[in-house]
């Protein structure tokens, strides 16, 4: 009997006992009973990570959304007026302000840092692709032994501290840093080139930190390519460049897109790299969010920035998930 029920539940996997059903229909006193009676072990297994993610990942966004519509009260603790309030007469008052959002659209400081963030993320992604694609291609063409060594060398920096790898560039890019010293010693320049606290340094930092995220998806795509296709192309008279453009490149598009999204999305919201290497007169959007929150204690405005950033990134994030799922489906045999 036990065996039968186990088999049954494997063949017809139970739904996640819809949370709202038992919250609303079964009410608090009976819900434990409901769980014991209706939830097989399987449902419990589903429920544990599900509840965790709902409580600690989804609900926080709803709170951010709520606070983004609240009114800023500099002296309050916490520093915003409640959005929902029970009035004496038993009515629920809901006060939604769109002031924080209109501020985001009209304040020149914000507009320019949005533009700057998107520009930096876009070009960093492009540079990562230009550097990462040839590397991934070369790795996928090398012999298996070398391939493993190369892959290990790509992954190794990823295991060391991100913060310290960004820090390492300060020592290289400073006015009296390694690069300037070498160039001066070689006589290529007469006085140090200013590289720290420029957009150039930010590009270097982002490309450096995110390069493995570009190379790995590209490699796992390129590695699967069937060599006979290239042979066929060359038999039919295509030169190596044409064969690459017409066969390899189109086939590797999923890898290109996955890698680009993995770089672009976090780069838009990058905080550490521009803080350490970037310009002081042109902030990126994540820095504005953090300053608004920690320095001005303006929680509603910081929340509005977060929501706006999320709206901007929702399409790329969905695209990424789409490709991620396809990848996982393809692994199933």
């Amino acid at each position: 009997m036990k065996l039968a029920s186990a088999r049954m539940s494997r063949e017809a996997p139970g739904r996640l006992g819809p949370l709202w059903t038992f919250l609303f229909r079964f009410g608090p006193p009976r819900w434990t009973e409901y769980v014991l009676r209706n939830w097989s072990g399987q449902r419990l297994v589903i429920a544990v990570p599900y509840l965790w993610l709902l409580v600690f990942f989804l609900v926080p966004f709803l709170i951010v959304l709520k606070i983004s519509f609240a009114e800023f009260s500099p002296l309050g603790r916490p520093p915003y007026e409640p959005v929902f309030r029970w009035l004496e007469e038993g009515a629920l008052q809901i006060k939604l302000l769109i002031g924080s959002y209109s501020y985001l659209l009209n304040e020149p400081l914000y507009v320019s840092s949005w533009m700057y963030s998107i520009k930096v993320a876009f070009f960093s992604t492009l540079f990562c692709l230009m550097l990462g694609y040839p590397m991934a291609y070369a790795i996928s063409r090398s012999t298996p032994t070398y391939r493993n060594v190369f892959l290990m060398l790509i992954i190794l920096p990823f295991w060391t501290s991100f913060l310290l790898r960004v820090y390492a560039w300060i020592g290289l890019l400073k006015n009296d840093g390694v690069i300037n010293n070498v160039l001066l010693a070689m006589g290529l320049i007469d006085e140090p080139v200013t590289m720290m606290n420029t957009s150039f340094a930010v590009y270097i930092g982002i490309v450096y930190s995110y390069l493995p995220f570009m190379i790995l998806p590209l490699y796992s795509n390129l590695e699967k390519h069937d060599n006979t296709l290239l042979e066929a192309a060359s038999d039919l008279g295509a030169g190596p460049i044409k064969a690459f453009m017409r066969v390899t490149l189109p086939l590797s598009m999923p890898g290109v897109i996955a890698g680009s999204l993995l770089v672009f999305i976090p780069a838009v919201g990058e905080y550490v790299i521009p803080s350490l290497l970037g310009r002081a007169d042109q902030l990126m959007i994540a820095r504005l969010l953090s300053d608004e929150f920690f320095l001005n204690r303006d929680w509603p405005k910081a929340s509005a920035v977060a929501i706006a950033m999320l709206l901007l990134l929702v399409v790329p994030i969905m695209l990424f998930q789409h490709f991620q799922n396809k990848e996982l489906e393809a692994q199933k045999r």
Partner: protein
Amino acid sequence: MKTQGLFSKSVLGLGFLFLYVPILSMVVYSFNDSRSVTVWNSVTSPTLKWYGRLFGDEQILSAAWLSIRVAAMSASGAVVLGTLAGLVLARFGPFKGRALLQGLTTAPLVMPEVITGLSMLLLFVSLEQLFHAFFGWQFDRGVMTITIAHITFTMAYVTVVVQSRLASFDDSLEEAALDLGARPARVFFRITVPLILPAILSGWLLAFTLSWDDLVVTQFVSGPGSNTLPMVIFSRVRLGVSPVVNALASLMVLVVALGVILSAVLMRRQEQRRKREEQMAAAG
């Protein structure tokens, strides 16, 4: 063919130069006996002076200890939750809400950290208010909140690793065990877990590293007095380059390099053993 080989070599050479020169220069200058880090003092260098300073630095040592504890707790929590989520997504077939679960587990992989950090902090503040209003109980932000936040964003990585490992082999072994009368929980611990153990281990290490390394989310959710190592490093580095940080970084690079090489050797040995056993099984 020849030109392609040359092209590959130069691309890889330049790429790896770009990846490793900063790390190497950091290591080299950690032995430099001069305050202004980048000017090599050739008279008294190399020196271990900064390593000595590092081990006398109370602030860094206590922050490192805190980071280790937080990272170990978060990695363990993330492995439990992430393995369950990976199992559910890979094995439980379609159920209502599967798409949402898939979305919730992949979103943290790309979510900008400031957003995650802000939303977690606002959740904790709301919870504080709630607890205070209902139970009169005040909890402080600190190790607890940092750990919860780290579990949440690192479990996504564990889920992906476990899910793709589970997707790489079919469920016939688990099916067989069920047919022989083992209960699902027993099947999970006796069959599934041993099969995905490498994925679980690398998931744990990945989660540990990510937690150990995290600055932004931690800055949001930590309370007064709970400074993790990245927070201490960040505040020092903002004031300028510091040779003690170079020494710390070099030690971390050393540990990671040893770990990676060791695990590669172990994995290779295991692979060879497996191949030998397969051959023997085929022969016998």
